């Protein structure tokens, strides 16, 4: 989706403002919101990619004016409603009035250690990696209206395969209900000037983590 979450290289957002001695959470609701989101992911209500797509589907104005956990709360609300786990009427009332769609498991105290561990996204490859380390590649100029992890600033540019990171779940596929469709993942390195033009910082190089379907051999 070409929307506001894809921020790399945009102007106008101002300076970065680090906070001295920042607390882990700034309000209790942020902590509850984080835990609730993690819990629903842990019981299989949605995958990490579907959760990200849920954030990206917030209207741009809402995205920009909501805090991080504010976005998480809105995403949680939208997704539990979309999946039939709770109704907007129940959330508005603050109480359940009927059973929700069945889930395979409940998030219990015994499950907590598992929720604190990141899953593995490695999958068995169905074919060898198409590109080799050191190979020149061009990112495709794609603009899917659905979730993708190829940022706009890195589309249609030539870079070098720096590393092969294994075969991973393909977010673009999971989020359209087409399964994990595992793909090789590469670190692709670009010169700053390739991305930003002649006035780029000459000392800058930027890499992205690119799934194989985003790439084609560079024209020689």
């Amino acid at each position, binding site marked *: 989706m070409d929307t506001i979450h894809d921020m790399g290289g945009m102007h106008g957002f101002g300076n970065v403002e680090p906070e001295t001695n920042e607390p882990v959470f700034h309000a209790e609701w942020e902590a509850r919101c984080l835990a609730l989101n993690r819990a629903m992911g842990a019981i299989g209500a949605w995958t990490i990619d579907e959760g990200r797509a849920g954030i990206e589907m917030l209207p741009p104005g809402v995205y920009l004016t909501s805090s991080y956990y504010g976005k998480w709360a809105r995403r949680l609300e939208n997704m539990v409603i979309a999946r039939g786990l709770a109704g907007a009427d129940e959330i508005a009332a603050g109480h359940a009035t009927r059973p*929700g769609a069945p889930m395979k498991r409940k998030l*219990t*105290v015994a499950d907590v250690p598992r929720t604190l*561990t990141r899953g593995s996204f490695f999958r068995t490859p169905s074919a060898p990696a198409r590109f080799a380390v050191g190979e020149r590649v061009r990112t495709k100029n794609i603009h899917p209206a659905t979730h993708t992890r190829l940022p706009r600033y890195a589309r249609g540019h030539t870079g070098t395969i720096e590393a092969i990171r294994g075969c991973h779940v393909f977010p673009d596929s999971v989020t359209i209900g087409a399964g994990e469709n595992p793909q090789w993942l590469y670190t692709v390195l670009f010169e700053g000037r390739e991305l930003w033009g002649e006035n780029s910082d000459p000392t800058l190089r930027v890499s992205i*983590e690119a799934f194989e379907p985003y790439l084609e051999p560079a024209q020689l």
Partner: protein
Amino acid sequence: MTDDDHDHGHHHEEHGSELSEMQLRVRALETVLAEKGYVDPAALDLMIEAYETRIGPHNGARVVAKAWTDPAFKRALIEDATKAVQSLGLINRVGDHLIAVENTPTLHNMIVCTLCSCYPWEVLGLPPVWYKSAPYRSRAVNDPRGVLADFGLTLAPDTQIRVWDSTAETRFMVLPMRPAGTDGWNEDRLGTLVTRDCMVGTGFPKQANEVA
């Protein structure tokens, strides 16, 4: 927030009135999801406790201090950070996709996620607000020196800058350079020099004379 001059992307962007609205909204969600049997609030309490206490940058600091004192560990860390960090027996596993990138006198690494806020939670804890903010996510990839200036950092003009955009499930941490004047320091003492920001690439470790 409607006014652009009201601290860009900072945590105050939800107005006070919205803060209480958010409290009510999240409480309603928790009540409904608990009543339906999807989550046990006691489990949420434990998760929050873990993020507030056990999962934080002190884990990453241990990794860095070990790498500064143990050349074999450092090689293992650069080779396969997932395996190397797990060998330290930190409380939580790191998943399968951790990558450590090393700063040198001629190369400075910075980590960002321009598309969301991917961050190596397992070694650094939850990301700070600035890491998730629009200013950082937009500028890190095309104006890293400007971003570093916001943190009070200046690099030599010829230092190469490498920005790692975390666009997949691989996660990155920076291995900063060991500060001068720390010969003979043990791991625990070195660990006191390691800040969260120096493991993201927006800071340097503390200098030897900054700690007791």
